[in-house]
C-alpha cells in the first residue's frame, strides 16, 4: 500500500469505514441488520440469490420514496410512512420475483413478506430523512451489496456443510455439518462469520497503521 494512502486511511479510519458499506461497515456484521432471513432461510445459494434480488428491488424504493413524500406528512407519521411504502412496494416486487423465480420463491416462506418489517429495509424510520436522493441511492446500493455478500458467503457455506452441494450441484457426498441448515446452525455459523470478519478488520487496521508509520 502507498504511504500517502495508508496515512490518509489511518488518519480518517472512521470516515473511511462509514463510507464503505460492503466490507468495513457491513450492515449485517457491524449494524446487526437483516439477521432473521440470514439465519433461517439463507441455507443455499439459490435462496441467497432470491433474498438478494428481493432486497435489491425493495431497498432503493423504501429509501427514496418516503424521502420524497415526507414533506406531506408529519414527523410522527415517519414510521408508518416508511413501513407502508415498504408494504406497497412489496406488491410489484413480489410479481417481479415470482416472474423470475417461479414457485421456488415459495421456499422462502414468511421470510420474504417479512422483509417489509426487517430493520435492514425500514431502518430509515428511526432516522431523519434529510440526505439527498443520489446519496440515499448510493447508500442503499452499498447496503444491498454488503448484505448480498454475507448472503452468498453464508448461503453457500451452509449448503456445502449441510448438503455437500453448491448452487444445487452435488460436490461431495460427505455431510460435514448437517446442523448448518437449521436456524441454530445459522446462528452459530453467522456468529463465526462475524468473528472472522471482525478479525479481518482488526488485522486491516493494524496493517494500515503499520504502513502509515513506514518511512521508506
Amino acid at each position, binding site marked *: 500500500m502507498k504511504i500517502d494512502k495508508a496515512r490518509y486511511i489511518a488518519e480518517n479510519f472512521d470516515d473511511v469505514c462509514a463510507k464503505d458499506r460492503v466490507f468495513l461497515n457491513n450492515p449485517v456484521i457491524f449494524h446487526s441488520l437483516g*439477521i432473521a432471513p440470514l439465519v433461517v432461510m439463507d441455507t443455499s445459494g439459490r435462496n441467497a440469490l432470491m433474498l438478494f434480488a428481493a432486497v435489491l428491488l425493495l431497498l432503493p424504493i423504501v429509501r427514496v420514496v418516503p424521502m420524497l413524500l415526507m414533506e406531506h406528512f408529519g414527523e410522527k407519521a415517519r414510521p408508518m410512512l416508511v413501513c407502508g411504502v*415498504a408494504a406497497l412496494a412489496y406488491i410489484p416486487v413480489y410479481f417481479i420475483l415470482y416472474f423470475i423465480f417461479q414457485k421456488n420463491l415459495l421456499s422462502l416462506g414468511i421470510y420474504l413478506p*417479512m422483509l417489509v418489517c426487517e*430493520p435492514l429495509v425500514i431502518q430509515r424510520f428511526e432516522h431523519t430523512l434529510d440526505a439527498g436522493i443520489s446519496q440515499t441511492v448510493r447508500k442503499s446500493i452499498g447496503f444491498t451489496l454488503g448484505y448480498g455478500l454475507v448472503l452468498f458467503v453464508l448461503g453457500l457455506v451452509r449448503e456445502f456443510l449441510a448438503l455437500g452441494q453448491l448452487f444445487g450441484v452435488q460436490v461431495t457426498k460427505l455431510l460435514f455439518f*448437517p446442523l448448518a441448515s437449521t436456524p*441454530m446452525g445459522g446462528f452459530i455459523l453467522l456468529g463465526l462469520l462475524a468473528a472472522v470478519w471482525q478479525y479481518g478488520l482488526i488485522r486491516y487496521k493494524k496493517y494500515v497503521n503499520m504502513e502509515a508509520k513506514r518511512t521508506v
Partner: protein
Amino acid sequence: MSTVFHDVSLFLLYAVLAVFAQNAIFTRSLGVSRMIALVEEPSLNSVLFGGLLVAVQLLAAPFGWAYATYLAPLIPASTLIRAAVRPLAYILCSFLAMGIVWLVLEHGIRSPRCSELKMLLPLATLNCCVLGTLLISGSQHYTLAQSLGFGLGSAVGYLFAVLLVTEAQRRLRTDAIPPMFRGLPITLIYTGILALAIYSVTGHMLNV
C-alpha cells in the same frame, strides 16, 4: 360451556407453546435484529418494550384473524395478489393495534413513563416478531383463540429471550472473550446454543 373451556385451553396451550417450544427468537429468529439492538442499547428499556409488544400482539391478533378468515378468501387464491398483499394487510392490522395502544397512552394512562412508551411504540409495532406472528397465524389458519394465544406467547417469549440474552451479554463482557468474538459474534453463538437447547427438547428434522 365446553366450547369456552376448549377455547381457553387452546389459548393457554398456544401461549405456552409460543413462549418455549416455538419461541419467536430461538426457533424462528423473528425480530432478532431488534433484539440485538435492544440488548446493546442500554437506554432502551427492554421490559417496557416487552410490555408494549404484548399489547400490540394481543390487539393485532384479532385483526389478523379477521383478515385471514373473512377478507383473504375473497381474493382468488389462484392469482398472486393474495400473496402479494399479505404483508400490507398485516401491517395495517399492526397499525390499528398501534393506534389503539397510542390512544390509551394518550388519554387513558397518567404516568411519567408515557412519553418513553410512546417513543418505544413504533419500535415494538414495526417489528418482525409482530408481522411474523400474524403471518404464521394466517397461513396456519389459526382460530381466534389460537391466534390470541400465539400472539401473547410470542410476545412473552420474545421478552424472555431479550432478558436472557441481556443477562448473557452482561456476563460475556469479559477479557476472557477474544476481541474478534466480542459483540455480535458471541451474542449470535450464544443464541444459537440456546436454540440448540430448545431443539433438544422439541426435536428437529435434519437433512441426513
